């Protein structure tokens, strides 16, 4: 994210008159007030986000039974991971899922943004229509697409039959199930990334385009020489968010839980879904936590790499 993490100095400038009120320990009173304001959120984030995060890294070394009894088992959970064919399979499925989803979201998001970033009648309505899938819950999305894709009788297959193609069991065949889930994910998310890209496009100074037009540049060379390079901060944000949410299964979990349950033949079993099954179906909390901390490690490597490659995600128009 192209964000400055330092609070601006303007917020701390205050005239001496205000600071001198009651003289004694003014800055201490200000600090105390600040801590009290932050306390509820800080405590909540600590207990419900930071603690589970730290807890998850150590939980992988334990075996946990259904009643909360812990037993230290060393590296056993991690060793099991390496020889568990279902884990290795889910790792591969996740890899394919991320590898396809991230570029697909980039291309559709940017494509739609370029398409609707113009003045014409009803353009606001069209923008809303591209975005609207994103406000519906993923459970509803999953159920609706499941009905539409269902074996021979679904809406999609009826349409295919009308143009002379034969119906197909999109979710029932291990070769197409993952791609069907990917398609639905792109349909759900493309409007969100369209908006992000639109605001990125609107940040690009008009002068660049005017100059290019005077130089007689064609639309393709304008896109590759001006739009794409100047869109780098937005691209960075989109890549970071789409990769992290794809690996962490932010959208995939709900879709897979409702549409395929990881099947058929584990073809849609993402790591995040397999972790959930191991924890809440088979009560293997320790093993699930070991896999989760492996996922955390991957997310950390991706984030650090992205930030390192872009020098902290800061960009300047030059």
């Amino acid at each position, binding site marked *: 994210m192209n964000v400055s993490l*330092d*609070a601006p100095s303007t917020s701390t400038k205050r*005239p001496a008159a205000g600071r001198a009120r009651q003289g004694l320990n003014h800055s201490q009173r200000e600090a105390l007030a600040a*801590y009290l304001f932050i306390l509820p959120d800080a405590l909540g984030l600590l207990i419900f986000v930071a603690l589970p995060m730290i807890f998850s890294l150590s939980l992988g070394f334990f075996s*946990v039974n259904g009643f909360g009894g812990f037993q230290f088992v060393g590296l056993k959970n991690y060793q099991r991971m390496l020889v568990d064919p279902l884990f290795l399979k889910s790792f591969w499925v996740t890899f394919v899922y991320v590898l396809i989803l991230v570029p697909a979201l980039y291309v559709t998001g940017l494509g739609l943004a370029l398409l609707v970033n113009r003045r014409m009648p009803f353009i606001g309505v069209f923008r809303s229509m591209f975005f609207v*899938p994103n406000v519906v819950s993923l459970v509803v999305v999953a159920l609706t697409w499941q*009905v*539409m894709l269902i074996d021979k009788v679904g809406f999609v297959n009826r349409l295919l039959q009308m143009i002379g193609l034969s119906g197909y069991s999109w979710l029932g065949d291990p070769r197409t199930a993952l791609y069907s889930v990917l398609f639905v994910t792109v349909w759900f998310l493309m409007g969100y990334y369209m908006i992000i890209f639109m605001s990125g496009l609107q940040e690009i100074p008009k002068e660049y385009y005017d100059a290019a037009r005077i130089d007689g540049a064609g639309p393709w060379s304008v896109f590759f020489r001006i739009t794409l390079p100047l869109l780098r901060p937005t691209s960075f944000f989109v890549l970071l968010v789409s990769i992290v949410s794809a690996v962490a299964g932010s959208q995939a979990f709900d879709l897979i839980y409702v549409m395929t349950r990881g099947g058929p033949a584990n073809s849609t079993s993402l790591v995040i879904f397999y*972790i959930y099954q191991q924890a809440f179906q088979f009560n293997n909390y320790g093993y699930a936590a070991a896999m989760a901390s492996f996922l955390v490690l991957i997310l950390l490597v991706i984030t650090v790499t992205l930030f390192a490659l872009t020098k902290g995600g800061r960009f300047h128009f030059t």
Partner: protein
Amino acid sequence: MIAVLALLTVAPLVWMISASFKPGNETFGPNLIPLRPTLENFTYVFTALPFWRYMLNSFFVAGTVTLVALWFHSMAGFALARLRFPGRELLFLAIFSTFLVSLPVIIVPLFILVRQLGMVNSYAGLIIPAIFNAFGIFLLRQFYIGIPGELQEAAIIDGAGYFGIYWNIMLPLSRPILAALAVFFFLANWNAFIWPLTITNDQNLWVVQIAIASFHQQYSASWNYIMAGSTVVALPTLILFFIFQRQLVESIKTSGLK
């Protein structure tokens, strides 16, 4: 071309709504206008199931999370943006870094923790862990940084305390962004699935998303009822979107750029 693509994009949602008005033997038909429209699917959903109860649960949980989150996040955002205290940058970085932790990744330890706290199968378990997220704090802090310092200085000279500044100056000024965040939080919590699924199995505590997902497992052949339930669940989000789409879009833009 834009019009065709836009129509294709909304077609599945239109089809869902249309299927909810079709009798069972017509569900899969490609026609978008029902041949024999009926309200029977909706009547069934609301009479054969305690669907009102699930709706109320969802409204209560999403509403409470939204209100408390706005309150907490605006206080934290105000302090991080406008008050000076030792460790401010560090604290902000720490809060900001939780941004990257997503729920599915920590769900196992979070569940164990919340179970130890005795909050399984309770409204507290549904609500409290959902309140805290760095995104809201971050957006509000960005907003408060942009408010001119003169207002705060004048209030201090008038003898206002820090809570007074927060309550009487900052909160009224941030009404637009609070409204945008309220829509955002309500939608996210109304639509939430994985956490309610994990923390409740008592049917009295079911939220609508859990209800339609398990409805689907029980009556997997009765797609007309499932589509009616889905339409009812999607309706509040669609209405909120049509009323507040400008605010919603603005808050998404801000998250990407500021």
